[in-house]
């Protein structure tokens, strides 16, 4: 029987069966061990899934699955422990960095990271964020900034842009009433306890690679015990921005990245100029 006379079903099962395509010789990509093979609850097009994957890839590449403890607090990432094949703690809203401090202080040789949204890190948890950074805890904070409260259905976040609509700023954020968006990453970059601080995004392949490099740095720097690594990932929220994923990425680039420019805010001295 040649290929032309095959039914479609036969074609799939016999010609493009997994074992016929993936051989040791041509294998270029594998499922990330640290990412659990399960459907995610995130909306289509959301940046969280990519950010999760990057962290999982870094943990795999550094081979530190058995030495890593993650903390994800209340917000869209509250179910992160369902997706990451590592030990994790679900923290109260805003308190992830305090929780991570407790873990790191009793196990200083383990890798500890928190994964927090903008409402969590820059509104209810501002105090914990600043003091954890200022103490120079040897942890990595991954900060997802999508300018809105995702989990609760699209209310104004501390990072919501001026004029941006949300369910609690239905006519757009009026800074004379609601105050200004908080650039907390610029704020913590000033603190001596912060060793590395950068802003990335996951909207294009290039930015995804840069974000992964930043997360990789954040894990590696923990070994140096020289202070905290802070990696912001500017992300989209198609559902609550009420856009398609493609529209949301375009809007993010034109509006979010104009206000929150990508790039390093603080890099270790030896690394400058690399």
């Amino acid at each position: 029987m040649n290929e032309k006379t095959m039914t479609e079903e036969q074609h799939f099962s016999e010609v493009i069966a997994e074992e016929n395509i993936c051989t040791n010789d041509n294998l270029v990509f594998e499922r990330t061990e640290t990412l659990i093979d399960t459907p995610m609850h995130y909306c289509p097009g959301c940046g969280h899934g990519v950010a999760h994957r990057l962290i999982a890839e870094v943990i795999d590449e550094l081979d530190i699955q058995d030495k890593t403890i993650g903390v994800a607090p209340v917000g869209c990432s509250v179910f992160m422990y369902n997706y990451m094949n590592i030990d994790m703690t679900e923290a109260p809203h805003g308190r992830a960095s305090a929780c991570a401090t407790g873990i790191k202080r009793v196990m200083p040789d383990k890798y500890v990271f928190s994964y927090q949204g903008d409402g969590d890190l820059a509104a209810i948890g501002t105090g914990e964020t600043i003091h954890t950074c200022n103490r120079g805890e040897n942890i990595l904070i991954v900060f997802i900034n999508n300018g809105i409260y995702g989990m609760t259905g699209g209310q104004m976040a501390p990072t919501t842009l001026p004029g941006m609509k949300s369910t609690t700023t239905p006519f757009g954020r009026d800074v004379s009433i609601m105050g200004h968006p908080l650039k907390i990453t610029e704020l913590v970059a000033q603190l001596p306890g912060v060793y590395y601080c950068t802003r990335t995004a996951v909207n294009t392949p290039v930015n995804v690679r840069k974000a992964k490099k930043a997360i990789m740095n954040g894990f590696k720097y923990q070994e140096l015990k020289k202070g905290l690594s802070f990696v912001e990932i500017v992300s989209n929220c198609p559902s609550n921005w009420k856009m398609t994923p493609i529209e949301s990425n375009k809007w993010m680039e034109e509006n979010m990245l104009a206000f929150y420019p990508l790039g390093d805010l603080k890099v270790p001295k030896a690394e400058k100029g690399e």
Partner: protein
Amino acid sequence: MKELKLMKGNEALAEAAILAGCDAYFGYPITPQSEILEYLTQDALQRTGMVVLQAESEIASINMIYGAAGTGKKVMTSSSSPGISLMQEGISYIACAELPCLLVNVVRGGPGLGTIQPSQGDYFQAVKGGGHGDYKMIVIAPSTVQEMVDHVKLGFDLAFKWRNPVMILTDGALGQMMEKVQLPDQLPRSTEDPEWATVGKPKTRERNFITSLHIEPDKMQEVNLHLQRKYRAIEKEEIRCEKFECDDAEIILVAFGLVARICQKAAQLAREKGIKVGVFRPITVYPYPYDELNKLADQVKGFLTVEMNAGQMVEDVRLAVNGKIPVEFLGRMGGIVPTPEEILHKLEEKFVGETV
């Protein structure tokens, strides 16, 4: 006999924490218990390697406890009333996630900012909940500086036995007063990781995660039923109480903590006047010794509950007695400690006189 030392309650408790092999303390200053943090920052690290960290708030310190307790280490915090109020959300999470830890409340007068003087006004908060949802802490109430020491090891033992937060409910007077104490031997810090701890996942086991989030109603109900079964078992096994001259008593004073000692003096004064009075002291206020009190109700004509609050534990005494005999109440508030004489006076007013 072991050496006796003269120590302040708060410092004795802090020393007991080091000796119990505590792995970490996270706390924030508040009167009247700041000596605990001060004492631990002196040389706990040098002596045992214990982590001692001053947090930026009580909210931060309870969440440091939450994170560190999840690693299966012996961790503790201490505070006083307003600070403990700030911790309630975290305590609720810790109770639901079933993490062992030791919390100390050196109670001061409230409500609000209140006073820095001693009080028992946080009884309800400690034994009935405090935070949101159906959970319980095991609550032990020392009445001497010696018990401030002994209850630290007891607290850690109970916390790990039941995977539950344990609170030492004491007050500003016990925290500040000096008494002779006998200190225990140094115990080692934690050496083994419990199988549920988040310490990094080896290939040989499934991942551990610590959460109090169960979005499916059936699952959340199952978690609640599991907690309630645990609390019923704690109520069977862990009740501790002390009776002072109750065997022939006609009237029994019921009090916890420091007030129980004042009641002993009042009972002595009463006996000198020919009134047979005993003292019943719950040592665990959760679980509460309902059955013991109920039995005693058959042999006496009344209870007088004495507290440094507006009447909190008296509700549990009435639940225990279930209407069998009168339960009277004497309470002082605002940081005022009742005197033996006023207790005796109240006792005579309520139980002696035309009925005798």
